[in-house]
């Protein structure tokens, strides 16, 4: 499959109905690889559905759904190796799971429990694990971009063979951090992929109100970098482009990938997307562009799949998700006294004094509660 930068139309490996759009053999993927990708798509959809239900049930306070964008995350995260670093945003949990974050840890994150590797310190929009090189994201849009470049610069200085992938949305490309980060990476030849999940909305603001360029990928030109415009709902195309760009990154060539996709949910559980989406748009994407169905149709076409296998997979995934959620729910709330931990490596004398104040406050509250 030929992969060119700066195309007018998104790069595709599959037609919308799942028929091959390119010579599939040229992707160098096995049937097992295809099945593994499909399983990840289904699994991420199931995790996301559960997260959303938790908010509806009042068990979680916040959730940013990723449904509709599974192929962008699965396709871009699968080429990563253990030594690669991942900087996410509030809609990259699928990639984090592929990188090794446990589903139970993800649900603990959503619930704010101790099992969450960030121990309930972040709003549930992305956890992180040092050992997996997943950096927990902040909520300030775009900040992860220059950070990710710094990590990629360090990887190059240390010649460790690793690279960095940095996720962000279409809205983030209006932030200064995007431009500063792209410029730094290009100047230093940093091993990084800038991965933009263009779901066409920054909360309510549509892409054409966000930028005057036709694509986001073409912004790479301004930094002397290649930009790839890929169909973000085509897991095979995203994989092929990401694999190519990961190899380029390891050779000191940073790239920008724009994955053109669509989110099914509102921006977050606090948003009302009926206020800004035109009628019928969501329905069109769900029924005609769905990334999971598209891969399923591809597998059907290759006689790799059938209804029986589908049912078995759905049951398996359902059980796995339920077990992960159960494990998360068994995990306790973080101990209130730990609120003063992790500001610095060691508590300063001031924090020690505040800890004494809090201990007294907690003891008094407990006594009053007992009365």
């Amino acid at each position, binding site marked *: 499959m030929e992969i060119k930068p700066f195309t007018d139309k998104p790069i595709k490996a599959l037609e919308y109905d799942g028929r091959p759009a390119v010579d599939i053999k040229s992707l160098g993927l096995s049937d097992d690889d295809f099945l593994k990708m499909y399983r990840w798509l289904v699994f991420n959809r199931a995790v996301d559905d559960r997260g959303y239900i938790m908010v509806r049930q009042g068990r979680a306070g916040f959730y940013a759904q990723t449904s509709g964008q599974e192929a962008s995350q699965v396709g871009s995260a699968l080429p990563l190796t253990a030594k690669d*670093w991942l900087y996410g945003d509030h809609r990259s949990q699928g990639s984090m799971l592929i990188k090794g974050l446990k589903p139970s840890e993800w649900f603990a994150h959503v619930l704010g429990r101790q099992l*969450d*590797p*960030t*121990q309930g*310190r*972040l709003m549930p929009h992305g956890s*992180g*694990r*040092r050992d997996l090189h997943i*950096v*927990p994201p*902040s909520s*300030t849009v775009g*900040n992860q*971009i*220059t*950070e*990710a*470049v*710094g*990590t*990629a*610069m*360090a*990887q190059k*200085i*240390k010649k460790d063979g690793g690279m960095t992938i940095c996720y962000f949305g279409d809205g983030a490309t209006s932030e*200064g*951090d995007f431009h*500063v*980060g792209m*410029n*730094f990476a290009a*100047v*230093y030849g940093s091993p990084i992929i800038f991965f933009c999940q263009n779901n066409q909305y920054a909360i309510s603001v549509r892409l054409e109100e966000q930028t005057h360029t036709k694509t986001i990928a073409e912004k790479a030109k301004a930094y002397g970098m290649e930009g790839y415009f890929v169909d973000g709902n085509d897991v095979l195309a995203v994989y092929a482009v990401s694999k190519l760009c990961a190899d380029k990154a390891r050779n000191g060539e940073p790239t920008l990938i724009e994955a053109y996709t669509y989110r099914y949910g509102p921006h977050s559980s606090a948003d009302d997307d009926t206020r800004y989406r035109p009628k019928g748009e969501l329905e069109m994407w769900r029924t005609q562009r769905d990334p999971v169905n598209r891969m399923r149709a591809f597998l059907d076409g290759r006689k790799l799949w059938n209804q029986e296998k589908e049912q078995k997979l759905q049951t398996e995934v359902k059980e796995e998700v339920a077990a992960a959620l159960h494990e998360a729910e068994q995990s306790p709330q973080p101990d209130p006294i730990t609120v003063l*931990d*992790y*500001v*610095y*490596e060691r508590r*300063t*004398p*001031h924090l020690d004094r505040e800890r004494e104040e809090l201990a007294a406050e907690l003891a008094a509250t407990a006594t009053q509660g007992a009365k």
Partner: protein
Amino acid sequence: MATAEVTKKQTQFTMVQAVRSALIDEMKADADVVLLGEDIGARGGVFLATEGLIDMFGKDRVIDTPLAEAGIIGAAVGMALYGLRPVAEIQFIDFLYPGFDMLVSEAAKLRYRSAGQFGVPMVVRSPYGGGVRGGSYHSQSPEAYYVSTPGLKVVVPSNPYDAKGLLIASIRDPDPVVFMEPKKIYRSIKSELPEGAYEVPLGKAAVTREGKHVSVITYGAMVLLALETATAMESDGVQVEVIDLRTLQPYDTETILKSVAKTGHVVTLQEAPRIGGYSGEIAAFIAEHAIEHLEGPIVRVSGWDTPFPYALEKAYMPNVERVRRAIKKTLDF
């Protein structure tokens, strides 16, 4: 050239030479220490704090950056997360604001938000302060912003010896440090420096001059003004104690309380504007914990609550007369 001076066993160092000496010692000792900033390579930094370092350590470790402070701080954060110990130079601290978000939203919060998994061992070095005819954008003292951000440490040396020891301690510290260098005294005073690396511990103040009537609590370039005032007031029979905080966050409460218990009078001295300034924290702390020792009001001496002026700099900067009047005010109460 400064490199040659070091090999000739230089013993008298200006502050900027002390800073350079600290960088050299730490870069030799630890391959993870890297420098990044504007003009720090061939130019050696606009104040020459990194002069010759690119030749000694190469451009992988002395990194000239594009002109974007947000990128400098952001890249330093990412390097530190990875495990390097970046020391970023911001040419003037007045230009740190584009990197402010990366410092307060990222560097300061990453350890906390990762529940201790990730540390950000980085230093942001930057010249600060007035008295150099630098006008509004080459003279600011913005320490209050950084001090009020949990997760950051803030260090301000007042002499070459402390500058080297505090900078080495900051580079070795596991958490992000804003290291403010008083550029007014970059070259005006010299200290005798021992050979090799040494630390001046963070969080420890110094009693720079002992006195029994009034404690002047200050830091950075203002320490010299406090000492000058103390000398000037000797003839009035007033014995001024000068406390050099050295680290503003975390700060040394013990030394402050001990001094207040002895003198019963406090003047705080900073060149930053007064409202919301760092001295307010010191004054509040003393009022909360040592009011029984106070025999007069805590008086704050500061710059005025204005932007920093150019031609009117002299009228803005604290001076002996301003400090003297404050001391009189609390002693005559």
